[in-house]
C-alpha cells in the first residue's frame, strides 16, 4: 500500500526530468516527432509517430515511401510543402489527411522547420505530427449542421414569399369585388358579384390546403425513417395508378439492383414515385407511348449516397426558359387542363426536408430525367 502511494507520487519527484515531461505531454496530445536527414537520405520517427501511423516499433521509415503516409488527394500539397521547407527554408504548420499502415485516414496537424548546419545550409527537416482527427470531425459536423440550418432557413424564406404572394392574389380580388359593390348602383348588380366571392373563397381554400401540405412536410420530416424497398414502392404506386398506366399504354422499366433499399419516410418515397411517374405520363409526347426508365445507383465518391433516376421519353421542357421555375409553386409549362403546378414543388420540398437534392435535365421533344440524391 505504502509503496503504491509512493509510486503514485514519483512523477512529482521527477518534475525536473525534462525528458519525462516532454514524453508525457507528447503522449497526452498524440504528438509524434520525426526528423528527415537529407544528407544521409534517412528519416527517423519516435515511437509515438510509429503508434500514430500504426507501424510496428521496428519499422524503418524511408524517404522513398514517405508519400504513402498521406492521403492521395494531399500528395501534391505535401510534396510542395516539404520541398519549400527543404529548399527555401520555409517552415510549415498545416492540417493534412494522413494514411496509417492499415490505410485508415485521419486528420493530422503537421509542423515542420528546416535544420541548418554550421554553414547555414539546410541539411534536414524536423517536426511533429499530431492526431487532430476528432477536432476536424467536429468541425465537419458543425459545418454540416450549419448547412442544414442555412438550407432550412432559405426554404422558410421561400415559403414566406410563396404565402404572401399566393394570398395576395386572392385578397386583391376581394378588394376589387368590394370596390365594385360600392360602385355599382342597383342591388341586382351588387348581388351578381356574390358569385365571384364564392369563387375567391374556393381558390383561397385550395391555396391554403396546398400551403398546409407544405407545412406538414416540414413537421413530418422528423418522422422515423425506416428501410423502404424501391421495388415494393414502385409496385404499390403502379397499382394505385394502374388505370392511367393502362389507358396511356405506359411501359415502365426498372433496375434497382445497385441499391435495393433506403432508409426513408415511406410516404415520401411513395409520393416521389407517384408525382414523377404521373408527371411523365401527363406530359407524354403526342406521337409516342410513354416509356419510363427508373434505376438506382450509389455515389461511391459521396459516402455511398443512393441516387435515383427517373427518365421519360415525353414532350420535355425548355430548361433554358423554365429551368429555374420547374420546381416552383403554381408554375405550369403546358396547356394541360389538369396541370396544377404543385406536384414537383411538393416533391422537392419532401426531398430537401430530408437533406436530399433533386435535379432535372430535359430536352423538348426528347424527354426529361429527374435525378434524386437521397
Amino acid at each position, binding site marked *: 500500500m505504502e509503496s503504491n502511494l509512493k509510486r503514485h507520487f514519483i512523477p512529482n519527484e521527477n518534475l525536473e526530468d525534462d525528458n519525462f515531461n516532454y514524453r508525457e505531454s507528447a503522449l497526452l496530445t498524440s504528438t509524434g516527432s520525426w526528423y528527415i536527414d537529407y544528407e544521409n537520405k534517412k528519416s527517423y520517427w519516435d515511437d509515438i509517430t510509429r503508434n500514430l501511423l500504426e507501424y510496428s516499433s521496428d519499422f524503418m521509415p524511408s524517404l522513398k515511401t514517405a508519400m504513402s503516409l498521406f492521403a492521395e488527394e494531399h500528395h501534391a500539397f505535401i510534396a510542395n510543402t516539404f520541398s519549400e521547407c527543404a529548399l527555401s527554408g520555409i517552415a510549415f504548420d498545416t492540417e493534412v489527411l494522413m494514411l496509417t499502415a492499415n490505410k485508415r485516414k485521419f486528420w493530422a496537424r503537421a509542423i515542420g522547420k528546416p535544420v541548418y548546419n554550421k554553414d547555414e545550409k539546410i541539411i534536414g527537416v524536423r517536426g511533429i505530427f499530431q492526431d487532430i482527427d476528432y477536432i476536424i470531425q467536429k468541425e465537419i459536423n458543425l459545418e454540416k449542421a450549419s448547412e442544414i440550418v442555412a438550407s432550412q432557413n432559405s426554404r422558410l424564406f421561400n415559403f414566406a414569399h410563396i404565402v404572401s*404572394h399566393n394570398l*395576395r*392574389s386572392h*385578397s*386583391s*380580388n376581394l*378588394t*376589387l*369585388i368590394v*370596390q*365594385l359593390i360600392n*360602385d*355599382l348602383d342597383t342591388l341586382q*348588380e351588387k348581388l351578381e*358579384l356574390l358569385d*365571384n366571392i364564392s*369563387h*375567391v373563397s374556393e*381558390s383561397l381554400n385550395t391555396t391554403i390546403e396546398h400551403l398546409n401540405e407544405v407545412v406538414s412536410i416540414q413537421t413530418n420530416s422528423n418522422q422515423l425513417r425506416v428501410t423502404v424497398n424501391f421495388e415494393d414502392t414502385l409496385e404499390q404506386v403502379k397499382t394505385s395508378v394502374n388505370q392511367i398506366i393502362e389507358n396511356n399504354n405506359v411501359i415502365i422499366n426498372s433496375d434497382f439492383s445497385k441499391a435495393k433499399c433506403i432508409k426513408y419516410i415511406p410516404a415520401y418515397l411513395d409520393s416521389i414515385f407517384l408525382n414523377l411517374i404521373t408527371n411523365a405520363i401527363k406530359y407524354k409526347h403526342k406521337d409516342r407511348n410513354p416509356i419510363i426508365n427508373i434505376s438506382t445507383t450509389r455515389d461511391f465518391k459521396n459516402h455511398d449516397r443512393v441516387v435515383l433516376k427517373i427518365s421519360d421519353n415525353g414532350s420535355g421542357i425548355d430548361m433554358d*426558359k423554365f429551368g429555374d421555375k420547374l420546381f416552383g409553386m*403554381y*408554375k*405550369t*409549362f*403546358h*396547356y394541360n387542363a389538369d*396541370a396544377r*403546378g404543385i406536384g414537383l414543388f411538393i416533391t422537392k420540398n419532401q426531398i430537401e426536408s430530408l437533406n436530399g437534392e433533386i435535379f432535372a435535365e430535359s430536352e423538348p421533344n426528347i424527354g426529361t430525367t429527374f435525378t434524386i440524391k437521397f
Partner: protein
Amino acid sequence: MNKKIKLACIIDDDKIYVNLVRRIIETKKLCDHLLIFKDGKEGIDYFETLLQNFDKEQLPEVILLDLNMPVMDGWEFLERFTKIKNKFNSPITLYVVSSSINAIDIEKAKSLSSVQNYLIKPVKIDELEAVFNKTA
C-alpha cells in the same frame, strides 16, 4: 378631346380578376371591345399573327399585362412584344398589372421602354379609369 378607346386587351391567367376588370370596364364604358388572353403565349400569338395579316381594327390601344402566368409569363411576352411593337406603326400603351410587390420586378418593368407603368393589384377603379382616359 376624349376619344373613347375602341379595343383593349387583358393578358392574365386569373379568371376572377379578368371577370372583375371586365365588369368595371363594361360598367364604366371604358372601351368598346375587350380581348382576353389567359397567358403570354396566347397574347404574343395574337400579335404575331396580326402582324402577318394586319388589320388596324384588331390592334388594341391598351394592354394590361400580368407577370406571373403559366406557359409564357409576362416577361417573355414583353421581350417578344418589344421586338414587333414598332412594326404596327400605331401607339400601343402597355401597363403591367401584377400582384408582385417585389421591388426588383417593379424596377425591371418600369425600366422597359415598352412599359408605360406598373400597377399593383388590386387595381382601383379610378386607376383603371385614368389608364383608359389618358390613353384615349
